[in-house]
């Protein structure tokens, strides 16, 4: 599954034992693909001395600050960006 800018996606809610770069506060949260950064080696295997291949596509995903933190006060358009690897993203119907 590959994603395009503007597409709604959800960060997988799964647990993961070991090193990974998907922050817990975003798991299960929906956002929108802002940018495709390209393919990068996988930190989940690279962290343990492997070559990190195959490369994984990395996306910048934008989230509504109010959706993430309902108590958020500020502009309705306030957003949070995070970079999330493709295998942590799911399509939102």
């Amino acid at each position, binding site marked *: 599954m590959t994603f395009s800018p503007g597409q709604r996606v959800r960060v997988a809610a799964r647990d993961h034992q070991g090193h990974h*770069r*998907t*922050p817990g*506060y975003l798991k299960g949260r929906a956002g929108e693909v802002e940018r495709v*950064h390209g393919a*990068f080696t996988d*930190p989940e295997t690279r962290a343990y001395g492997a070559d990190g291949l195959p490369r994984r596509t*990395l996306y*910048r995903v934008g989230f509504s*600050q109010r959706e*993430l*933190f309902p108590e*958020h*006060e*500020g*502009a309705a*358009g*306030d*957003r*949070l*960006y*995070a*970079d*999330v*690897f493709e295998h942590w993203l799911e399509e939102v119907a």
Partner: protein
Amino acid sequence: MSGHDDHDHDHAPVTEAEEPEAARRARVLEALLAEKGVVDRGAVRRGIDSLVSRSPADGARLVARAWVDPEFRERLLADARAAALELGLDSGPSPVVVALENTEDVHHVVVCTLCSCYPRALLGPPPDWYKSLPYRSRAVSDPRGVLEEFGLHVGDDVEVRVVDSTADIRYLVVPRRPEDTEGLSEDELAALVTRDSMIGVAEPAAPPVPA
């Protein structure tokens, strides 16, 4: 060691016993890796030297050039490494540096909630507060409150974009050019671009008042 306790200044002694645990582990690991031929001590030293020789003045040169040269600004926002190379600054192939521009409508602020990712190749080592747990957690849960604590009020007519550097990208904020700086040279402009303004927790310094 005799005599040290005789004199009257009260500096803390610098001894092996005072070495922080993390530093001790790093030193022992480096020694082991060097012994096994995995790393070369000279290369480690050169890497450290290279990183600590970078400073916010490097990033400030990029920002000032972007302020005075709209075409350079475009190139910086499109490909920060290529633009930096034009000024003789090499941010390296990895991690990738991306520049984000603040405008009258959008204010970016950068954090790394997972550790301390920072565009070291262009700004040097991050400030201690950037690595602190309170900043790392509250910058995402209460960004406007954190910015207020830094003395920066962002009005509700401006959208705040918190950028969590979670993976292979390092973010450099291009702050807005201060007003009343039309007559300043590029070097004078660069002097206004503070480290904190390139993280997004402050505006650049105000221009000096003409004598």
